[in-house]
Every structure is written in structure tokens, then in C-alpha cells.
């Protein structure tokens, strides 16, 4: 068995050596008009692909064994993350440490680091919002950045034209985003899966293209600058103070989001969303209004994008349509999928990993995105449930006679 596996890996490495031969080994030196044969590269490719292939096979096999064991025992595998989350002796000290870290962070680290954290927390908001739509209700939405865009532009434009302040627009922006969520929701009520994904993708692009081309309304690609930062009862603050203020504002918003999303998921509505994800037909047959439930998911998901958009505009003080491309939607989707669909803790972890990793992987420079892609592929093969998989809640019931 082992020999067989190794043989396969050997074959893979030979194949790779053959495939990469022209680019890795042959080099034409045009200055001296000679061909250089870099045989050492062939060796590296061979060994490298052999090791990677063997490792890959080993991990796959271990994973399959795990699945088999689960099937034999009939007991669901409990992952380490789930066990930790269910253990109060772990969660309470962990929460304590995290909150101390969060409180001390802006005073210990530089402004630059604080700004990265704010960005990460904006993605927590976005991730948790999209999680309602994709993770819980199972509606694949590739145009989520559109709602983010709506939030950001509603602050920028309302402020520019009417001088609305941050706090009043925070609500209005979220409301507008929710409205757009419903507008998107109506035509896609009948769609599912791939079709839904394509339509939402189109919707996201429409919003972005409108913002890019309707100069009279949105100032086009040049964007809107000098958006005021959030105010604090009219107190004048310098850049450092404002950043710290926004940082704590984001912590507050994140906590608020976590609270609301958690309550929603763990309610009649949350259950209906999950049921909708599992089986739409059965869901309706059980008396759930599909239309209302779907629209609610779209609207509530979009609301958080609206919040995040307003804060984003206030934080960067400049927005243009380039911030709300398809890539942005995909990034947010990655936060949800990588973190763990449907899991609140997962999405938070996912947001931090996804924003902080590329930030701190800068030393890899141009290989950054390559490494990032590799991480995603490996993650999805070995942990399709995400970093922190959802745990289904078990309910307490009284024994009836």
C-alpha cells in the first residue's frame, strides 16, 4: 500500500519534471547566444513535487480514515475548535484575554496597526452580514459589495449635498442598503445556486458601473474626497485621536453585530433560514413563507454592509467605485467560507485571518496572493467546513410523563 502510494508520487514528480523542463531547465542566454542547462532546477522540481504529492496523499488518506471512523461509530467528529468553544474553562479566559488585548491595542501599537485592525473589523461586519445570506440562508450572493457601496456612497453624498453627520447617516445608510437588498431580492426569489450567483454578480456590477459612470450623481471614478470623520459631540480631535475613536466605535459596532446576528440565528427566523438552505420545497410545505424569509435574509444581510460602508467612508475620508469591485465581494465571500459558513466565531476569525494575513505577508511581496490562494485551496480540501465549523445548538427540554 505504502509502496504503491510512493510509486504514484514518484510518477507525479517525473511528470512534473517533464512538464516544467522547458521553463525550469532550458535557459537561452541571448547575450552570449548559448543555452544554459540548469539541471539543478530539475532536481528541485522533482524532489519538491514528490514531497508535496506524498504529503497531499497522506493528508487525504488521513481525512478519509477520519470519515470512515465517524461512519463506523455513528458519532459525529468533534473538531478541536468546537471542543474549545464548548468548554467554559477555555472560553471565559480567552474572552478575557481578547478583550484586554482589544482595549489596549491602539495604545500599544502604532496608528498603522490600529488602522489595519479597523479594516479587519469592517470585514467582521461585512462577513457577519454576508454570513446571514450565504452561510445561514444558503443564498450565494456574489454582489455583496454593492450594498457596501450603497452604504459608503449614502454617507458621502448625503454629507456632500445636505451636510448630514456620521451618526444620522449610519442609520440611513443601513436602511438604504436594506432597501437595495429587498430590491435585489425580488427578482431573484425564484432563483437558486448558480443562477442566483450570476444575477447577484450582475447586480453588484450594475451598482459599481452606475457609480463609475454617472458623473453628475457620484462624481465618477474620481470619487468623493474630504468626507468628514465621525464626530464625538463636536469635540475637535487630531488624526491619532480620531483613529482610536473609530477603533473603539468599530469594537462597539462589532459587538452590536455579533449580538444581533447571534440572536437572529438562534430564533424562529434563523431556523427558517437554515431550513430554507436545506430544502426550499419542504420549507414551504412546513408553512414557511419563502418570499418573506428570503427577503428578510437579503435585507438583514445588506443592512450590515450598509453600516460597514458608512464607517468605511468615514474612516478613509475618500471613496471611489474601485473599492467596490467584484474582487471585494469575493473577498467577503472568502471571509465567510474560510471562516466557517454559518458560524459567527468562524466568520470573525476568518475576517482577521483574511485581512491580517495578506497584511503581514507583505514580506512575500508578489508571492502574497499566490500563498493566499494556496492557503484557500488547502483549506477547502481539508476543512471544507471552514476554520471554525458551526455547531448545531442543542435545546433543553423537560421530560414529560
Amino acid at each position, binding site marked *: 500500500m505504502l509502496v504503491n502510494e510512493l510509486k504514484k508520487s514518484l510518477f507525479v514528480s517525473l511528470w512534473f519534471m517533464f512538464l516544467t523542463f522547458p521553463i525550469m531547465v532550458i535557459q537561452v542566454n541571448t547575450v552570449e547566444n548559448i543555452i544554459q542547462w540548469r539541471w539543478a532546477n530539475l532536481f528541485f522540481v522533482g524532489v519538491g513535487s514528490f514531497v508535496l504529492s506524498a504529503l497531499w496523499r497522506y493528508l487525504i488518506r488521513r481525512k478519509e480514515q477520519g470519515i470512515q471512523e465517524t461512519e463506523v461509530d*455513528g458519532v*459525529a467528529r468533534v473538531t478541536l475548535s468546537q471542543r474549545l468553544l464548548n468548554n467554559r474553562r477555555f472560553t471565559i479566559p480567552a474572552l478575557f484575554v481578547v478583550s484586554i488585548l482589544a482595549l489596549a491595542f491602539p495604545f500599544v501599537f502604532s496608528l498603522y496597526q490600529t488602522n489595519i485592525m479597523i479594516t479587519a473589523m469592517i470585514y467582521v461586519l461585512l462577513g457577519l452580514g454576508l454570513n446571514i445570506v450565504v452561510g445561514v440562508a444558503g443564498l450565494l450572493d456574489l454582489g455583496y459589495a454593492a450594498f457596501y457601496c450603497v452604504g459608503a456612497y449614502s454617507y458621502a453624498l448625503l454629507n456632500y449635498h445636505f451636510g448630514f453627520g456620521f451618526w444620522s447617516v449610519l442609520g440611513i445608510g443601513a436602511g438604504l442598503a436594506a432597501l437595495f437588498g429587498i430590491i435585489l431580492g425580488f427578482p431573484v426569489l425564484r432563483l437558486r445556486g448558480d443562477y442566483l450567483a450570476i444575477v447577484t454578480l450582475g447586480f453588484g456590477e450594475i451598482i459599481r458601473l452606475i457609480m463609475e459612470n454617472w458623473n453628475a450623481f457620484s462624481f465618477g471614478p474620481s470619487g468623493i474626497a474630504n468626507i468628514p470623520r465621525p464626530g464625538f459631540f463636536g469635540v475637535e480631535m487630531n488624526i491619532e485621536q480620531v483613529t482610536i475613536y473609530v477603533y473603539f466605535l468599530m469594537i462597539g459596532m462589532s459587538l452590536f453585530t455579533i449580538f*444581533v446576528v447571534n*440572536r*437572529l440565528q438562534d*430564533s*424562529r*427566523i*434563523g*431556523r*427558517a433560514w*437554515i*431550513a430554507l438552505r*436545506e*430544502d426550499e*420545497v*419542504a*420549507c*414551504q*410545505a*412546513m*408553512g*414557511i*413563507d*419563502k418570499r418573506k424569509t428570503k427577503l*428578510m435574509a437579503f435585507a*438583514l444581510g445588506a443592512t450590515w454592509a450598509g453600516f460597514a460602508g458608512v464607517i468605511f467612508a468615514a474612516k478613509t475620508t475618500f471613496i471611489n467605485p474601485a473599492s467596490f469591485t467584484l474582487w471585494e465581494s469575493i473577498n467577503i465571500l472568502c471571509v465567510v467560507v474560510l471562516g466557517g459558513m454559518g458560524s459567527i466565531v468562524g466568520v470573525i476569525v476568518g475576517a482577521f485571518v483574511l485581512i491580517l494575513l495578506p497584511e503581514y505577508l507583505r514580506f512575500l511581496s508578489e508571492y502574497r496572493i499566490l500563498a493566499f490562494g494556496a492557503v484557500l485551496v488547502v483549506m477547502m480540501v481539508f476543512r471544507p467546513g471552514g476554520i471554525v465549523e458551526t455547531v*448545531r445548538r*442543542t*435545546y*433543553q*427540554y*423537560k421530560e*414529560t410523563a
Partner: protein
Amino acid sequence: MDMEPILDVKQLTMKFGGLRALDKVDLDVYQGQIVALIGPNGAGKTTFFNCITGMYDPSGGDVLISPPKNGRPQRINGIKPNKVTEKGLARTFQNIRLFHNMTVLENVMIGCHCRMKAGILGAVLRGASTRREEEAVIQKSYTILKKIGLEKYVNDFAKNLPYGAQRRLEIARAMATDPFMLLLDEPAAGMNPQETHELDELIIRIRDTEGISILLIEHDMKLVMSLSDRIFVMDYGKKIAQGTPEEIRKNPAVIKAYLGEEIDA
């Protein structure tokens, strides 16, 4: 029986393009009855169910219900499936359609959904009334599971249940919607004789203790004959016979539908 039928289907027709999947089918069910709908494969039985439960909008005819609680007859064809369920007709599916990644208890709790009120605000604020409602639903769901005999699986995922238990969970979930009538689409399909026997008892128990009338599609003749008060037989979208099990057993049209044209020995 001088009462109104609780389900009265008149001249129900369903056309898919040129195909008449249902052709002027009449059927009625009275309170407390177990009624079976049988027929060869492709006879239109499931289409009939889909038309009654709002999955399809029938091309013609009427579906009238008069729920025992408020006896007013009302026409329900063309309304949405969830509205049909709200009115008290709950169904199960021929191919099991559970919410696989939810626990058994949650599956039943979903059934209670349309009898609950909590909205977005209620869910977020989680006031006393919402908490009470949740509590009551959990308790009600557990009680139903106990009646169906699934209490040992409460916190298991639906997908991990044995086949027979999954079928029974579908019934439990349908019962959670507080129906006055259950529509069971081949509840015994794929069950072994032991499980079928338990199902037989379960259906009778549901009728007797819960007062829920039952309309079922079934191929297992033994089960149909022992359970049913009345039987309707369909073939090629048409109703070809109705009557008590005894009458159906002797009906030449039924024998012909099941066994083909006259057999010359």
C-alpha cells in the same frame, strides 16, 4: 355521514402542456377517516397531492376544505404551499425531504414555525413573550417526537437517522404544524415489514388520539387494505374507482388497471 367533508376535491384537472396529469378527479375525506389514494406508477397521485398542497396551481376544478374547528368551506386551490399548511393541511414527501443538517428536534420546531409569531425585533430583543414561545415550541416538539417514538434521536442530525426513522420524522414534522389532516405520500416506501407494521399502528394512533384525518398514497396493498376506511383508485390521471377496501378488492376496473387487459388463461 351527514357532515360536510373536510376535504372536498371537485373535478380537479392539471395539464402540463398537452398532457392531462389529472383529469377531473373527485375525492372527499370526512373527519376522522383514513383515506388511501392508490394507482399504478405515473397515475398522477403525487400530482394530485401537489395540486392540493399548493405546489402546483391546478388548471381546473376546486379544492375545498372545511376545517373541523371553523367549519366554513373555503376554496384553497392556487394559494401558496405555506398558506395551505397554515390552513391545516400538512404533507410528507415521497422522497424524504428532511432538513438534513438540522437536528431532529429542530426539524420538528420548523413545523411549528407558522404557529409562532416572533418577528425580527422580537428575535433580537428576545422579550418575555418570545422566550415563552420558544420554550413552548421546544416542549411541544419534544412531546410530538415522543408520540412518534423518536425521542432517543432528539439531538441527532436528521441525516444520521435510520431510514424508517427519517420517514417517521417527516410525519412528526408535519404534525407540528397543527394540521386537521395529514397527506402522506408513500409513507411506507422502502420500509421492511416490521417498520411497515409500526407505521400502520402509528397512523391509526395519530387518527385516534390526535383526531387528525389522513389521506395517504401507498403502494403497499396490505397496509392500504388494513388501514383505510375508503380507497380511491387512479389510473392515467383519472379516478377509476372508489369505495371500501372490500369493494376495491373486487372492482374489475381496478384489477384491470393493476394487472393489465383481461388475462386469457
